[in-house]
């Protein structure tokens, strides 16, 4: 590739080629920039701005309070409890998604006969609407007429129905399980795609070198999966951390605030307590935490 300097023979009165290309480029990205500003930059700035006021949601009127919202939040037990819940939920559900996802991917990678069919079946939870999925799970978990309790009692594992969603730590465990069920297909697809691109020669070389099945998994498969797993974990961390609908629909953050995560707290502050300023402050704090993962992801994506 070679680059030429600005043309010196351009006809007078006409802008140089570089300038005209520059203008065309600006014109082409303008729509994207405008949309980006309208849906991302404006809400972001307004959230930061609103966080400095005490605002009554229905009227959107209020007064300047400076950092008071942040001071109140950081001093309250509820914020820290929600953050802790958020971390427990994210770590728990993500760990299960990754472990289960890798196992299923390895199984699908081996089984050639049913692979196409099984792969579409595995994707089912991921494609299902969250509302539908959660309603089904609530019915399964129900302490009065739920199938799960019925089966457990029939098998003699419990002798009283278990309250899956109304007590702690059951509610958090149920939440983590449903989250893992809903999102493990994402891990399966990413890992399976990578598995299929690992050259057979590596496995053959390893078996000639004396590695057994476990040795080949540890020394060939896992190192080859490392990069894709890092990206999957970072993406899923971001997405699980901000998960709202699944938690809201399954437990609503209850019992009391037992499963309330930060996104649910934002919602509660804004629309249950009518504190738009406080809600914005929680959202800003959440954003700062997620920014950390974002930076990690971007620095990963760059190599």
């Amino acid at each position: 590739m070679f680059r030429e300097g600005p043309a010196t023979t351009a006809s007078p009165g006409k802008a140089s080629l570089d300038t005209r290309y520059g203008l065309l480029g600006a014109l082409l990205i303008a729509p994207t920039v405008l949309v980006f500003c309208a849906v991302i930059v404006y809400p972001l700035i307004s959230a930061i701005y609103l966080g400095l006021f005490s605002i009554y949601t229905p009227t959107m009127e209020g007064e300047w309070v400076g950092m008071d919202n942040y001071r109140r939040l950081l001093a309250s037990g509820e914020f820290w409890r929600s953050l802790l819940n958020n971390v427990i939920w994210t770590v728990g559900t993500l760990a299960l998604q990754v472990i289960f996802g890798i196992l299923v991917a390895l199984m699908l990678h081996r089984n050639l006969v049913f692979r196409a069919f099984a792969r579409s079946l595995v994707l089912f939870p991921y494609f299902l609407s969250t509302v539908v999925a959660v309603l089904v799970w609530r019915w399964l978990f129900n302490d009065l007429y739920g199938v799960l309790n019925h089966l457990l009692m029939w098998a003699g594992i419990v002798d009283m129905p278990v309250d899956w969603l109304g007590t702690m730590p059951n509610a958090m465990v149920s939440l983590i399980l449903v989250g893992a069920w809903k999102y493990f297909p994402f891990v399966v697809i990413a890992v399976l795609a990578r598995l299929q691109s690992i050259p057979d020669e590596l496995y053959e070389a390893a078996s000639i070198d004396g590695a057994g099945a476990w040795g080949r998994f540890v020394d060939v498969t896992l190192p080859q999966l490392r990069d894709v797993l890092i990206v999957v974990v970072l993406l899923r961390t971001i997405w699980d951390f901000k998960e709202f609908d699944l938690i809201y629909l399954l437990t609503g953050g209850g019992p009391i605030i037992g499963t309330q995560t930060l996104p649910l707290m934002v919602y509660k502050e804004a629309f249950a307590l009518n504190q738009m300023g406080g809600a914005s402050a929680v959202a800003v704090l959440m954003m700062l935490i997620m920014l950390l993962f974002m930076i990690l992801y971007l620095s990963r994506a760059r190599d």
Partner: protein
Amino acid sequence: MAGIRFDQVSKRFGGVTAVNALSMEIQAGEFVSILGPSGCGKTTLLRMLAGLERPSAGAISIGGAVVNELAPAERNVAMVFQTYALYPHMTVAGNIEYPLKKRRVPKTERAGRVREAARVLELEALLGRKPRELSGGQQQRVALGRALVRDPAAFLLDEPLSNLDAKLRTHMRAELIRLHRRIGRTMVYVTHDQLEAMTMSQRIAVLNEGALQQFASPQDIYARPRNDFVAGFIGTPSMNFLDGRLEGTGADRVFRSGDWSLPIGALRLADEHPDPDRRVRLGVRPEHVRLDAQGEPARVILVEPTGHETILVFDYSGNEIVARMDGEVSLEPDDSVRLSFRVAKLHLFAADDGRRLNLDDS
């Protein structure tokens, strides 16, 4: 160090026969090439030897013991892959050390053996690098090092030089010959490149369509090809073939093709040709075609000078004949010349099954 024996070995994939009832014996310490066109079964043969494929029939022995039921790790063979198959997340030292680690060689001994292999292959300065930081030739040497460090009974090499550029290939060829001379281990080398096979091997096994065509020294294969496939496959440019029939016997024997005939009384045949039509193929190596004022008329079609020699294509009584001549020959397309063949160097093959008819001194 161990010899290798294939006894009636076959491999079928579904309805396709990749290797067909192949028997051959490789001596301990020998450098043998398995040579053939793409899809001739040579890689399958090597993979069966390594234990990566199971033979459908027959027995494979290494060092006198049948290894059919042994896993790759139990056969004490090392393999170098065409793509090198280095472990990308391990350093050069880690790659070379891996087979020792898996065989539970004590750590102190491992370090010494890795250093020794690295010294032999001149990899000492690269031990801390990852494979992706190495050139193709260096990766090749690491793959060799991983094989060398184990001190295996036999080395199996699957087209190890085909991913290198031409200059490096020549260099690595010489390196491999030197390595074989120094360590004296049995080496089985699969290639489709006859130059590699001819220059490196003590014996060459020529394969076609899953069947062994000839297993002999490079000189033998070139001078006394056992059939027309081997004759046509070995040698660049390829041997010229003329189809015709034999007339007469003994010193009066004549090869006739259309209205053109060639007295070949000087050529000794192993026996009288059983085909009543006496149909044969006459084989002429390009270097055995010469300009001769007493010869048959021919017309130059193409001139390809390569420097020290010139490849010429002639129209010779309606046949295209390729000749290899001195680089100083000055001929132009459409020139008329006269050609003759060195009769004592001609090859005769049966037209029906392609077997060699010449009587060879041996």
